[in-house]
């Protein structure tokens, strides 16, 4: 069958980084094709090249047999390539109907026909089994609905030849995912070539016909889904470094090692409306407490309450057994609590400051602006942590935004370790970083706990939580549903059960 889309020898260079190096990629009409790879493999870049956001530095793109080169998203769209991005890329201030049709509203004599627009929007959403008020402003709906609206927009174009779905399922629940798959199958039957990106392997195996694997900006291969077992796929995605992860597998989850005296932090029916239902939780010195749950289950919200990043509405927080009001991060910091956010780029590092400045920031903030840390002390601390965490490049005066994700994460960790916290809360520290750095960070967490620090470890990856935690708190639908002592009888299936079914007793 002739390719709907054929990309050959694609090259994309950013200053200092070769994002795509001689990558071939093809899409057949009427297939669902998964683009696989770890973060940093070049998936986003490839998609942006395909949608005309980036221009290529080498290679060719053929669409339906014709050579094309896009100068912007508009050209790509007009050529029949529609995209739904991971974050909802719509205009929150416009109505649902407008968001579906803006740029191609039905018009008569140049005048937009609003009633027709509304009618068509309704129809287009009805195909997704969605019945909502299309005149309402988009941001009055939940993220999942907004995602569906984005898909409605992308698929409504009759001329769609290629549909790109870039992690569309990350904010959808299971039934919504099923709905999306139904739509995808329908479009596939219509002959649309669908490029699908998802981090959920089960979803990929359920829906994709073929897959292309990228790693470090290079093409690893193109495979039929039914001919590539999951384990092989994983090893292709992450390369031979698989063993690096397994090394710490053996780290003892020795619950007896933790002295359970007065907990450093104890939450009693602590909660915040709309964020997390009241929960109770204790964290002791030397203990790693894992938070498990799906995206949006309340993991981050719980962590933020303990740090004072958000204010609780109810319940109380005891630190060293004494009730405490934590109104702001500063208050928590004063009690030796540190929090490294999951949004590294927006809530963590400050890109235009140097590695050194980023590292000493929390300590400096605690001291106040009138008491600067002497430069010699800064240099000592920074050097020490660059070495300990193996941050590369080992240049304290480099701007943090020029570092890779993994090294940025380490800088962020160093920022908090410098404050010598008693409780370290880390939210998704291993997301979007390469495997090597991931293993290093996991090892570090284990070491810190051995040294007596309490760690609250939040991660989307159950394996990681299982591997590191003494105690696992399972969350579901913004509620803490179960606490599990980690032991031989606890495995991913056990946690999955809880997540899937809610409270077990």
């Amino acid at each position, binding site marked *: 069958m002739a390719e709907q889309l054929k990309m050959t020898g694609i090259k994309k260079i950013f*200053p200092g*980084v070769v994002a795509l190096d001689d990558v071939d990629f093809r899409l057949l009409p009427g297939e669902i094709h998964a683009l696989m790879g770890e973060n940093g493999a070049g998936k986003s870049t490839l998609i942006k090249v395909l949608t005309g956001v980036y221009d290529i530095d080498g290679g060719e793109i053929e669409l339906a047999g014709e050579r094309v080169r896009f100068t912007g998203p508009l050209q790509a769209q007009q050529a029949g390539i529609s995209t739904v991005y991971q974050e909802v890329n719509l205009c929150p201030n416009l109505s649902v109907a407008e968001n579906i049709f803006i740029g191609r509203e039905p018009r008569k004599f140049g005048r937009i026909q609003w009633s027709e627009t509304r009618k068509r929007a309704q129809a287009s959403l009805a195909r997704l089994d969605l019945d909502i008020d299309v005149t309402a402003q988009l941001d009055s709906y939940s993220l999942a609905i907004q995602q569906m609206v984005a898909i409605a927009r992308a698929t409504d174009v009759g001329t769609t030849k290629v549909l790109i779905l870039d992690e569309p399922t990350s904010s959808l629940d299971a039934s919504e995912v099923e709905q999306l798959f139904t739509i995808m199958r329908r479009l596939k039957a219509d002959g649309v070539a669908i490029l699908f990106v998802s981090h959920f392997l089960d979803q990929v195996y359920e829906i994709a016909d073929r897959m292309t694997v990228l790693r470090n900006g290079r093409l690893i291969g193109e495979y039929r889904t039914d001919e590539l077992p999951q384990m092989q796929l994983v090893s292709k995605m992450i390369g031979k470094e698989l063993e690096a992860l397994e090394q710490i597998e053996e780290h003892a989850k020795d619950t007896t090692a933790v002295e359970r005296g007065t907990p450093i932090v104890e939450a009693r029916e602590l909660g915040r409306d709309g964020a997390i239902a009241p929960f109770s939780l204790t964290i002791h010195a030397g203990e790693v407490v894992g938070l498990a749950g799906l995206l949006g289950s309340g993991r981050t919200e719980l962590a933020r309450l303990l740090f004072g990043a958000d204010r609780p509405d109810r319940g109380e927080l005891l630190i060293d057994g004494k009730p405490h009001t934590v109104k702001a991060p500063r208050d928590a910091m004063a009690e030796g609590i540190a929090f490294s956010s999951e949004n590294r780029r927006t809530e963590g590092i400050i890109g235009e400051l140097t590695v050194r400045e980023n590292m000493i*920031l929390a300590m400096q903030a605690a001291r106040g602006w009138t008491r600067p840390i002497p430069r010699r002390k800064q240099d000592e601390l920074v050097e020490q942590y660059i070495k300990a965490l193996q941050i590369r490049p080992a240049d304290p005066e480099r701007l943090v935004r020029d570092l890779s994700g993994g090294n940025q994460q380490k800088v962020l960790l160093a920022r908090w370790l410098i404050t010598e916290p008693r409780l370290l809360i880390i939210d998704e520290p291993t997301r979007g970083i390469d495997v090597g750095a991931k293993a290093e960070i996991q090892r570090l967490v284990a070491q810190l706990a051995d040294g007596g620090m309490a760690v609250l470890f939040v991660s989307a990856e159950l394996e990681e939580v299982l591997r590191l935690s003494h105690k696992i708190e399972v969350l579901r639908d913004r509620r803490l549903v179960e606490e599990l002592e980690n032991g031989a009888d606890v495995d991913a299936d056990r946690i999955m059960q809880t997540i899937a079914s809610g409270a077990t007793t």
Partner: protein
Amino acid sequence: MTSMLRHRLFWPAAVLVVLLASNLVFSNNFFTITLQDGHLYGSLIDILRRSAPLVLVALGMTLVIATGGIDLSVGSVMAISGALACLLIGDLSNPDAVGPVLLVVGAAIALCLVFGLWNGFLVAVLGIQPIIATLILMVAGRGVAQLITDGQILNVHSAPYRVIGAGYFLAVPVSFLIAAAAVGLTVALTRRTALGLLLESVGGSPTASRLAGIRSRRITIMVYVFAAAFAGVAGLIYSSDVSSADSNAAGNLIELNAILAVVLGGTALTGGRFSIAGSVLGAVIITTLDITAVSVGVPVETTLLFKAVVVIILCLAQSATFRAKVFGRFGTKRAEVPA
């Protein structure tokens, strides 16, 4: 790091040199400095003296812009400060006594601090966009200044007051000394303490700063108070220099000139990294422009044209996109790593 800083200040410095050199073409004794009656005289001294108000305002503006804000109200604050000072001096029984004049100066600056608090409150506590928040005082402030002076130009005759803007100390203009002291104070405050780092951090990412435990609200309020205080002093210098309070003329367009000075100096309007030296340089460039116009013999108003051209050239020179389009694709482009 230092080479980058040098690079950043290279263009503004080059502009200043060209400006000064072009003056030489039109007046041979441009660089001559003479001592008359124990006062230094000369075009260069004149530039230093006349830059003082703009340098002061630009200093405050630099700090505000570093936090990602902007302060449009500085001109109005200048007008109010001058108006209040002149009104109070007019009421003094003996306007030539130093003590009462100092009190008046103190009162004027105190009032400006209140205005700074107000701006800071709107921005940091109510969370209003800085450009909008300070627009309020920019509009209302001149009205308040006119209210103080009752719409008149208030003339004052007070020897001590006149020293601020037109006096000399050890042959050096007092206004220049005040500005220099303010620069010294700002540098010490931002680079000797951790304030500079915290400011850049707040400007770089407010959310990340809060989570790092920085009291960004307090810092934000502080910079607006600074900006207002410096503007107040600038207002005093201006009104002292002309021995009157003119609510319309005082600080007219100075907010724009100050922002221009900051941008010329290489501080980005989006906040973060700032350069005090750059802003001072920018302020001197703008003043030199005005003086150059006079010495070249064109109407003073046409400096606006100069400014427009300079802004356009410098903005384009600083615009990464422009450099990329003109000077090739990768040479000067900022690192842009895919998400």
